[in-house]
Every structure is written in structure tokens, then in C-alpha cells.
């Protein structure tokens, strides 16, 4: 398993490992809350039965993008420690594609940072999924990957903080 707090992996993600990476090796009670987000492959999309998803990444930039997100989180919620693992390769319905853990002294910041992080991952990290379904396949396309788009960043913040 990867041992850095922000990473891509071809192996199944272990949520407990991501939590441990957020908390650090020996949490001594400084965190009163750990919020986790687990993104999983849905079996149905746009009315189609999903056979599997194939995730690919531009890995060196994806890792930097995760670092950018961690930096934004540190700026907004200084007490939060964040860990993110994103899976690549072929994933079957039900498997986890991403796990985010945000450890914080208090739950409000943990929930907010965790939600902000997943919104930003979907906006800027160069990762793509190809959906293979009965009778065809299609690339899923979301946001233009522009970390300097302040409007997108504020939208992510609003999603996190209401």
C-alpha cells in the first residue's frame, strides 16, 4: 500500500490505512474527529448497466494536484490533516475509487475539509474514467482541469460550507 498521505494506487484502497495516514503514526488525542469520504463505482449510470470503469491518470500532475488541494485545505482549515488515495485501473461496481480522510480537533472542520477535497478532486485532478457498459463504452467528462478558476474553487467551498 502507498504510504504517503496523497497518492494514486492500482491496489484496492484500504480505508483504515487512509485514516491512519490522516491521523499520523501515533495519534495522541489531538483529533476529536475524522471524517471520511469513500467514492464507489455505481452499477448504473445514465440508465446504463455499468460493467466496469477504467480510470487513468496523468500521474505526476495528478499527485501535484492532490498537493494543491491539500494546500488549499491547510489554508482554509489549518488544524485539519488530510489524506487522499485515488485508485486507477479497472474497477468493478461497488469498488472504492477514492478515499479521503480529514482529521481535525472538531467535527465541523473535518466534514467541511473532506467535502471540499472531493469537490476539488472532481474539478482539477487529471484523472479520467472510461465507462464500459453492456453494448458500448464512453469516456466520462466533467470539469475542465483549471486550478486557477477561482469561481470553481468558490463553488467547491460553498458545497463544503453551505
Amino acid at each position, binding site marked *: 500500500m502507498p504510504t504517503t498521505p496523497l497518492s494514486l494506487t492500482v491496489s484496492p484502497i484500504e480505508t483504515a490505512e487512509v485514516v491512519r495516514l490522516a491521523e499520523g503514526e501515533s495519534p495522541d488525542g489531538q483529533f476529536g474527529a475524522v471524517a471520511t469520504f469513500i467514492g464507489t463505482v455505481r452499477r448504473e449510470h445514465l440508465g446504463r448497466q455499468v460493467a466496469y470503469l477504467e480510470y487513468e491518470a496523468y500521474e505526476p500532475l495528478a499527485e501535484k494536484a492532490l498537493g494543491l488541494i491539500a494546500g488549499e485545505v491547510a489554508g482554509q482549515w489549518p488544524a485539519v490533516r488530510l489524506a487522499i488515495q485515488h485508485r486507477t485501473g479497472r474497477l468493478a461496481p461497488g469498488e472504492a475509487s477514492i478515499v479521503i480522510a480529514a482529521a481535525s480537533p472538531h467535527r465541523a472542520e473535518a466534514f467541511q475539509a473532506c467535502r471540499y477535497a*472531493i469537490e476539488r*478532486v472532481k474539478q482539477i485532478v487529471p*484523472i*479520467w474514467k472510461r465507462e464500459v457498459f453492456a453494448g458500448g463504452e464512453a469516456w466520462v*467528462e466533467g470539469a475542465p482541469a483549471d486550478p486557477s478558476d477561482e469561481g470553481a474553487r468558490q463553488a467547491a467551498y460553498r458545497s463544503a460550507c453551505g
Partner: protein
Amino acid sequence: MRVTIRLFARLRDLGGSGTLTRDVADDASVDTVWQALAQEFPAVAPLRASIAVAVNAEYATFTTRVMDGDEVAFLPPVSGG
């Protein structure tokens, strides 16, 4: 000068390969590289407005100048998470 072009997802399908090597003018920008790509693979041309770019695995813009040996990546809209 020579640059490496990285294509991902739909762009890779349209370009037939994830990694291309092409010669471009010495004063080329990312946009110059894109224009060459669009000439070679006309199906990519209409996608420009939605494409983000990176040079040597750093976010860049279409006006960023490129140097000999650079890796220029064209990124379709992302769908991670």
C-alpha cells in the same frame, strides 16, 4: 526542436496514441503544438475550449512557451473521484 505530446482519455483515442513526438518551430507555444495536433487529427480541433494543458507536468496555458525536449500534455475535462 522536438517535443513530446501526451494525450489522455478521449484525446488519446482520437490521436491514436498517448505519447507522440513532433518537431515544432523554435518559437513554439503550447498553442502552436495544439495547432499541429489539430491539423494532423482534425477531430480534436473542436475540443480546444474544454482542454487544459500542462508543460513538464505543471499546469500551463496555451500561451506558455515550450522548449526543446518539453513534455506538453493536453487534458480533456476530468472525471476523477
